[in-house]
């Protein structure tokens, strides 16, 4: 007979151990909402940023991110770890954002204006040097204008690679395209952006 564990001493509850992501995913897949909440806490900022960069609107980005996490919760029983959980999430958020973008474009019959991105327009605070501060904001402004001119599929691949630092393979998986197509889109996006920003060279 094995002795039962000693009863916990009175006092404040001990902090829980942080669990590895793969353990949280297994638990969430089993229907553990608390484990899923931990996953949301870990990834919400990055996923919201993905939605914001694609949609260029804070409210739309929040809707897309919320829909994406709820979709992830519903699809978790089918997730078998064939990709990293974060890559899987990126794919869901990207698709949600693109669908929302298409709906919006149909409704207002105009293209998105990336340069109107309110949240991303927060001044970059790095500059103690006013000249550098001004130059950085001008560079960002030109980049946003150039991004607005890209087709959605090029913009998304470029953002995933250059801003979110995903590998070429991950970009392909997230966008649901093959590796060569992903590389081609990233190259064409980069080339068009460089041409649009030629004055910075």
């Amino acid at each position: 007979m094995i002795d039962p564990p000693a009863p916990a001493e009175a006092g404040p509850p001990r902090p829980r151990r942080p669990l590895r992501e793969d353990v949280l995913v297994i638990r969430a897949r089993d229907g553990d909402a608390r484990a899923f909440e931990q996953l949301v806490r870990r990834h919400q900022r990055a996923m919201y940023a993905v939605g914001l960069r694609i949609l260029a609107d804070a409210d739309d980005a929040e809707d897309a991110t919320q829909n994406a996490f709820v979709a992830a919760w519903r699809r978790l029983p089918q997730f078998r770890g064939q990709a990293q959980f974060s890559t899987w999430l990126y794919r869901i958020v990207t698709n949600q954002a693109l669908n929302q973008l298409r709906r919006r474009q149909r409704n207002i019959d105009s293209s998105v204006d990336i340069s109107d991105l309110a949240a991303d327009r927060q001044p970059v605070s790095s500059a103690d040097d006013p000249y550098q501060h001004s130059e950085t904001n001008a560079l960002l402004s030109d980049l946003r204008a150039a991004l607005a001119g890209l087709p959605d599929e090029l913009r998304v691949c470029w953002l995933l690679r250059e801003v979110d630092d995903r590998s070429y393979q991950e970009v392909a998986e997230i966008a649901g395209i093959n590796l060569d197509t992903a590389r081609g889109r990233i190259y064409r996006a980069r080339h068009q952006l460089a041409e649009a920003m030629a004055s910075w060279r």
Partner: protein
Amino acid sequence: MAISDTILPCGRDPLEVADHARAGRLDEHERSCPYCQSAAAEAGLVRRAAGELAGAPVDAPATLLPGIMRTVWAELRSTDTVALPVTGGGVLVTTLAIAAALRHALDDLPELTIHSCSADTADQPSPEAHGAPEVSVHITATATYPAQLPGLAGTCRQLTADTLQTQFGLRPHRVDIDFIDLDLPEDTS
């Protein structure tokens, strides 16, 4: 791998050239070829702009997490229920709630990491239960190396039984534990 419609006139893949430039590993050809130099410069400019965009402050709105979890809690998958042994009857608990309580209790064992934990009503109650409700528990877990698995399994079973009894007034019909791996110390060499 090269791609046919995005190859430089010198035959190089501009993405590879850009990656080499980023890593400071341009080869002899890439350092002297005007096409490669142009591709590297183009990539450098765009990368700088991308870096500024990546560094722009973005925080998730405070309403995002509560909005997600409201839906998640509302949609919790329906599971079987177990009747609790209370006077008058009529009190049920989901097997999901039982599993959550067990995970919470077992997370206090530092040598054990619970991966999955499920509870089901016992099909054939054991005779010694005398009609009291029983549940079968299935756990998959990893143990921290070095581990004394038989002793750890015993501790895990005992804590499971105690939690079932104190939290729900239930008996364990059986507690199956699969140790699927050992958690080895991080290799710091």
